[in-house]
């Protein structure tokens, strides 16, 4: 009994010490230098996140972050490296983009990693899905778009960021929820998809808020709906799909994960660092300035988020994979 109480106290003291900034700055068990594998080229969305998060995280943990860019196969090159070939001592982590992280291997057997070979640390941002049309498009509301698709199924052209990206799956989810059929036009990324919508080359683009916010604000694009739980503070006039009776909430998220089996202490330290970071008002302000929608989900909750996404997207893919490829 006595021993148990002592043990209890010791744990509390240990937690308290590990939470005090001094102790954290002193020793991160994963070493002084943490390599961050990035699955995309420098200057992209992942890099923007890294530049926002890592300098602050570096102060909290007292380590240096070194970015290693390994673009290729929509991130799969870097994530395969993380899962299969990286030391699991906490010295290597990676920026993990969901749902790309799972759809990569759900859709291609040749991609062999899976999320069980990773230790999810924290999700940082979620960029909600959004439906945009060109400024002079005849579609004024999302109902107009639905009506057009109902009238002539399979002809309304909807751009997405590529097969396997979040927008591609969001389109399918909407089709299934409303019993509609769109003509899905894949582009090489969110930018080209938005540009095509702006020029009226396609009827609408399913995109992400962060990529098109500037164009919506300046009136080059009109937002018809967002795939978010509730209306966004940045776009208060744009209705959610939920309001329109379509229960689809989707977006593209970015967070950090480590290889499977890293020391529990390293995992706890990283998670605590992200939790501290989330409360930093300067970090919140900078994220808002960059139109990054903070959605910090740590540890087991991030694991649950990834697991749910994996089963959801596997189900969607199984239901449509035979139709793709015409």
């Amino acid at each position, binding site marked *: 009994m006595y021993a148990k109480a002592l043990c209890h106290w010791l744990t509390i003291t240990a937690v308290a010490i590990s939470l005090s900034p001094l102790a954290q700055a002193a020793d991160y068990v994963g070493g002084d230098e943490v390599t961050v594998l990035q699955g995309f080229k420098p*200057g992209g969305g992942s890099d923007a996140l890294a530049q926002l998060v890592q300098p602050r995280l570096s102060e909290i943990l007292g380590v240096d972050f070194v970015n290693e860019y390994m673009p290729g196969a929509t991130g799969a*090159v870097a994530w395969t490296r993380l899962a299969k070939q990286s030391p699991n001592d906490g010295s290597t982590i990676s920026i993990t983009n969901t749902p790309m992280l799972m759809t990569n291997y759900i859709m291609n057997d*040749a991609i062999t990693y899976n999320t069980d070979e990773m230790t999810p640390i924290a999700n940082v941002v979620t960029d909600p899905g959004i439906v945009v049309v060109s400024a002079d498009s005849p579609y004024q509301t999302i109902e107009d778009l639905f009506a057009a698709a109902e009238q002539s199924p399979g002809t309304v052209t909807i751009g997405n960021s*590529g*097969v396997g990206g979040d927008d591609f799956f969001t389109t399918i989810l909407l089709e299934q929820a409303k019993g509609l059929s769109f003509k899905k036009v894949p582009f090489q990324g969110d930018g080209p998809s938005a*540009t095509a919508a*702006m020029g009226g080359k396609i009827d609408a683009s399913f995109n992400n808020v962060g990529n098109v916010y*500037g*164009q919506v*604000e300046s009136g080059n694009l009109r937002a018809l709906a967002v795939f978010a739980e509730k209306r966004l503070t940045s776009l208060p006039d744009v209705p959610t799909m939920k309001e329109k009776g379509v229960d689809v909430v989707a977006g593209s998220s970015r967070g950090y994960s480590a290889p499977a089996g890293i020391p529990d202490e390293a995992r706890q330290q990283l998670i605590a660092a992200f939790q501290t970071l989330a409360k930093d008002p300067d970090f919140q302000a900078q994220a808002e300035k960059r139109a990054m929608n903070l959605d910090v989900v740590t540890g087991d909750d991030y694991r649950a988020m990834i697991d749910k996404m994996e089963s959801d997207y596997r189900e969607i893919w199984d239901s449509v994979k035979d139709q793709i490829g015409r």
Partner: protein
Amino acid sequence: MDSSLVMIGLANVLSVNNIACILGGTLLGLFVGAMPGLSATMALALLLPLTFSFDPATGLSMLASLYVGASYGGSIAAILLRTPGTPSAAATVLDGFPLSQQGKAGQALGISLFASFFGGLMSGIALLTAAPLLGTLVLEFGPVELFAIAVLGITIIGSLAQGSVISGLLSGGLGLLLSTVGMDLTTGTPRMTFDQINLFGGIDFTVALIGLFSVPQALTLIENSHQGGKVASRITDRLMPRLATLKQLMPNILRSSGIGIVVGLIPGTGGDTASWFAYNEAKRFSKDKSRFGKGEIAGVAAPEAANNAVVGGALIPTIALGIPGSSSTAILLGALMVQGILPGPNLLTDYGDVTYTLIWAVILANVALLVVGLAFTKMSVSVTKIPDGFIACAILTLCIIGAFAINNSLFDVGLMLGFGLFGYWMSKAGVSPAPMVIGLILGPVMETSFQQSMLIGNDSFGVFLESPIATVLLLLALLSILQATPFFRWLRMPFKRRLKQS
């Protein structure tokens, strides 16, 4: 255009700090550009993290001037060593190296420098005065129009086939075939990847280009290294081109700059494409086509004016709409994002001070290029005094570093070496690698835009005729093909006869 913002930008750029950054950036760009295997995009990507700690205007000025410097620098190695320093300089090899073999390396380099300067300056002025106007043009180019451009580009293959047309078409066809490796855009199916995930993204044409051009040249240098007597080292002609020569080349330079600006504008095409287009047009407009490929200065001026004009052209949609016009400007846009500036159409208004500083930096960088470039080129000519064997080793080393640096991937190094051996065999067999590179550059553009066009047009080919831009471009392509067939000569025969009679 808000003139006060223009002036603020000018005042900003003229600070000691920024001028130093522009000079430094240009010099660095020249250096990187001149090194075979290291490209502008790569240098931008490597320098980008360094600029995060800079003030946005300073960082951008440095990146932009690096881009400008590298666009010219690529021609130095192309002319002196027959290895393009950057992908955009591949077209410069065709006439630049023969000139250098004839002992006219100085002249070729001088023309290249001045053509680059004029091309860059013109695109800078277009950027300053007409960005909002030209920027909206970009929206006219959707998948349908992009497909037409790619088709027009592919027709260049026919005219590039030096010597045998059959081997040129073979090389081009092989390039197109290799460009299909990787994930299919519309289905996500990996094609010809043999479950090798490094191939899922396709073959990076920069990797192929390094292998096809630089490795065979290095091997040839080693082969001939015991034969002493190098022509290029006896440069007796001056670097500064004569006024009369420049005057004569002006129409060519202006046309090529125009091509560069337009090709730069269009997202998905950049300096690598523009230089081939400009080379082809210079040849088409030339009175004596047979001199191309044997050391024609017009064949050096055209691609060099075009690839520097691409810098300003590609920046036009970037600053007017927040849409990058090339892979290099995509990195510049990334730099803005990281600095907390959201790219969009408000770059010229809300962030006008930063944007106009960037525009002035591009213009100033071209002036810097002329000054720094002259000194740098003089220095770099001495590379020809180094024994061939050493140069060959240096080229191979740079090729390996360059191929690795593109994606930080060792697989790409192996791929590059594979292409190198194949390129060596091609050079022995007398097959030009140029058409293959064009196939690799334009193949993915053509395929992707074709699939998208078919989706948009409900599987009807009519979609290409509904767009006036696409129709005109496709007609031009058809004309360009017919020009190379006997059919066209039969058509022209009666006219020629009439001309002779009159």
